[in-house]
């Protein structure tokens, strides 16, 4: 089995190397034979996918067959591991996840090479760039992190098992999503670099990659949020984001990717920011690589990191080379990237995009800086310092609030110039609504002047409300016009409106989702927690809830043994649910695992929903009674709802526009300026 996998990997390396070299030669030679050579390179790229897919299948089959002769399977699986997690073995360790990365990249390359007729020359350039990245990963897989390495000595009877933290349904989805995002940014990167190298005329490469970029961004968004949800649902500390270096590594390319998605519109519509957009997509790709380097090199300690290994050097060399190539072509071909228009007004969509980009990059820089500062400190001072949540919260949160303000204001600004009257008209209702929300918070007892965290929470609530009301007012305004013209009801008109300009209104829906996510986060300062040893009938008071321990017990199955408590949750004297916080002891790995239980109180208080979050922390060995930690986390469920809405908005933005209604112009318009708040 392992020989087949090893052969498939070697074959894939040969094919991708051929795809890269032959493709490169074909691009430089302009004779008749170069087209045929280029075609062979394309086909080699397609065949690479088949070879890497074969290697991936072999590894999964080996996991299902409990083939512990393969060291990777021995270290990451065991006989009693459930089937779904045996599938997840593919990405649960260093070597397997690199193979998975390579497989996804080959998959993206496969689709790209099949669609080459859209623009053969540009696709050929992009194909060569993708092949070069593929060669890098396959070199690592063949020579530094081989997933089919054979166990030395006697064949073990069972494996050491999958990390218990990974034995959770979300972990079957989270890494693929994150990797689809990380790897996916290789595609717009490849097109951008290709377009730069060949001095591609116009902005067509952006139109070609727009959907790729949005899909990739959507995957990365899902990946980041699923990671947060996994931390919330599995790690058992009651939070979802700890500013861990690995979490930061996933957030950085997301931030630059978000900046790119916004600023690329300026290039499409006004032919501006060409150097900037190139730099942004290069940075996004490099940050994806940096994230991979961080998790695998061991330079930064993290609970999520893979074991320390030598492949960090490979990544550093690759990142350095890529940076050098990108910088060289940016400088050499800078004349090709000259802006075509001038800025007419500071109060315009263009300048809002500039500031949006600035703030996104400042947040990204802050995270990068904070993540690497311990290393810098060790270099300068001779000792490490910790850069943890207090640093990121204090520095990044104020900038993020400014960003939220721009999220509200930006979409209502017109391209080129916005009049003050139009600003007043568009913002009156949302601003009044937002201020009313702030007033209500104070009325309900939030005192922003008592604590900086309350101040930030109030500001976040006001700005989120501003975003939400802005989006609603935009939908209502457009919907009313359509309803008036087509005699539809308002909701049908708004759906029609959305379909007419999916990108713009899809974007608004994404902004709406972002505002909900922020609402979910702003509940943090109001969290409550209680820890108590609970015997039969013992009670905990937690906000409006009373938790009563009905019983506690234990169980056993081939994969793990477990202890759990049965806790009845009462509110206003009425039982609303029963929760079963649990603690497992995995037999193969000998590691414990806490499984918190979460009850979102949507039925009791929809808008001000809270999570009742129970953790079985362990057992008092003297009394034999469980120790339960209960958290009340207000508003957290809105984060996950916000994610769903963000994904929905992205899907809407991906749908092609419906045909525009033809409006007969009575008088010819001389200046075809793009006015109004277009997308």
């Amino acid at each position: 089995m392992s020989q087949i996998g090893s052969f498939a990997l070697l074959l894939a390396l040969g094919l991708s190397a051929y795809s890269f070299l032959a493709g490169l030669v074909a691009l430089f030679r302009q004779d008749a034979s170069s087209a045929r050579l280029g075609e062979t390179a394309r086909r080699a790229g397609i065949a690479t996918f088949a070879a890497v897919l074969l290697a991936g299948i072999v590894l999964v089959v080996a996991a299902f067959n409990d083939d512990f002769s393969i060291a990777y399977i021995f270290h990451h699986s065991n006989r009693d591991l459930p089937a779904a997690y045996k599938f997840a073995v593919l990405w649960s360790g260093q070597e397997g996840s690199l193979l998975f990365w390579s497989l996804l990249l080959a998959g993206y390359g496969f689709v790209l090479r099949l669609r080459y007729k859209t623009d053969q020359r540009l696709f050929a350039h992009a194909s060569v760039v993708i092949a070069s990245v593929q060669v890098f990963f396959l070199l690592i897989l063949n020579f530094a992190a081989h997933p089919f390495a054979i166990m030395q000595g006697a064949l073990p009877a069972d494996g050491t098992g999958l990390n218990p933290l990974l034995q959770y349904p979300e972990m079957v989805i989270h890494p693929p999503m994150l990797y689809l995002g990380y790897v996916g940014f290789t595609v717009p990167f490849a097109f951008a670099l290709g377009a730069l190298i060949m001095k591609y005329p116009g902005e067509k490469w952006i139109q070609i990659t727009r959907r790729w970029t949005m899909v990739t961004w959507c995957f990365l968004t899902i990946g980041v949020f699923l990671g947060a949800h996994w931390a919330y649902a599995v790690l058992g500390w009651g939070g979802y984001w700890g500013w861990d270096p690995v979490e930061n590594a996933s957030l950085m390319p997301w931030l630059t990717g978000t900046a790119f998605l916004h600023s690329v519109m300026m290039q499409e519509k006004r032919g501006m920011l060409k150097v900037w957009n190139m730099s942004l997509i290069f940075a996004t790709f490099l940050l994806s690589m940096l994230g991979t380097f961080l998790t695998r090199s061991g330079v930064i300690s993290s609970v999520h990191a893979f074991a320390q290994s030598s492949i960090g050097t490979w990544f550093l060399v690759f990142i350095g080379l890529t940076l050098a190539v990108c910088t060289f072509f940016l400088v050499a071909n800078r004349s090709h990237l000259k802006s075509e228009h001038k800025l007419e007004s500071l109060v315009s969509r263009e300048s809002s995009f500039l500031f949006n980009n600035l703030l996104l990059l400042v947040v990204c820089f802050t995270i990068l800086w904070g993540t690497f500062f311990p290393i810098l400190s060790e270099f300068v001072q001779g000792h490490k310092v910790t850069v943890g949540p207090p640093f990121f919260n204090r520095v990044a949160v104020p900038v993020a609030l400014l960003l939220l303000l721009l999220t509200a204001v930006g979409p209502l600004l017109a391209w080129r110039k916005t009049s003050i009257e139009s600003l007043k008209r568009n913002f009156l209702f949302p601003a009044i609504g937002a201020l009313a929300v702030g007033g209500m918070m104070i009325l309900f007892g939030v005192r922003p002047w008592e604590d900086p965290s309350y101040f930030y929470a109030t500001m976040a609530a006001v700005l989120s409300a501003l975003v939400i009301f802005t989006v609603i007012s935009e939908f209502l305004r457009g919907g009313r016009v359509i309803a008036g013209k087509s005699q539809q009801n308002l909701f049908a008109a708004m759906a029609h409106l959305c379909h007419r300009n999916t990108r713009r209104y899809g974007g608004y829906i994404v902004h709406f989702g972002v505002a909900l996510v922020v609402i979910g986060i702003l509940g943090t300062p109001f969290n409550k927690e209680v820890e108590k040893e609970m015997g039969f009938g013992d009670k905990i008071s937690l906000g409006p809830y009373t938790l009563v321990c009905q019983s506690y017990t234990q169980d056993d199955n081939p994969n793990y043994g477990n202890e759990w408590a049965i806790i009845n949750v009462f509110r206003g004297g009425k039982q609303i649910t029963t929760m079963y916080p649990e603690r497992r002891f995995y037999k193969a790995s000998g590691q414990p695992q806490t499984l918190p239980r979460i009850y979102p109180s949507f039925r009791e208080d929809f808008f001000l929903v809270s999570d009742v979050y129970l953790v079985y922390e362990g057992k008092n060995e003297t009394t034999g009674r469980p120790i339960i930690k209960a958290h009340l986390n207000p508003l957290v469920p809105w984060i996950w709802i916000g994610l769903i809405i963000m994904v929905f908005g992205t899907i809407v933005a991906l749908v092609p526009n419906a045909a525009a209604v033809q409006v007969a112009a009575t008088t010819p318009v001389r200046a075809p300026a793009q006015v109004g708040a277009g997308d």
Partner: protein
Amino acid sequence: MTHNGKNQGHLFERLYHERLHRRGRAALQGRVGRIKSLRASAPAVRRILHALILTAAVFLFMGAGDDSARFKDLGHRMMCTCGCGQVLLECNHVGCQSSDKMRNQLQAALDKGDNDDLILQGFVQEYGPTVIAAPTATGFNRVAWIMPFVALAFGIAFVVYVVRSWKNRPAPALADGITIPRGSELDEFRQKARKETDL
């Protein structure tokens, strides 16, 4: 002469005292006048003073509180040293030797009446500088706090430079006979375009 001189001296003394008295009265009158004018504007001034005092008090006492609030605050400014990478009060390992011991130490220091700096210093001495969850505002560690704001300042300066250079850029040359509408003429076109393209 002497008498005269004495009289003159008295006269001077009296004049001096009268002047002093007048000055005093004038000064008093001035003060009374100022007080009267202050009284006239008292509500506004008082309100401003109250606001200033309140603001100062808010900032002075922001974050201050009882021991449990301080325990929570300090516990979130330190890391657990067991290797879990969690903030001290968020380490959820039952029986974690590090966090339980550290929490007890923190509570003991609070009970002793130590101030926050002293408590944090004590922890640094025992567990090393990595126990503090964020860089301190001393020495090289200041750079950690300053750099993001320097980046923001540079970023703003860069954006302003870009915007200005864009604004000052000459408009692209137009073909003969084509003029760009401006001012009210442009507004007219905008209105027309908006009307015809509005959804």
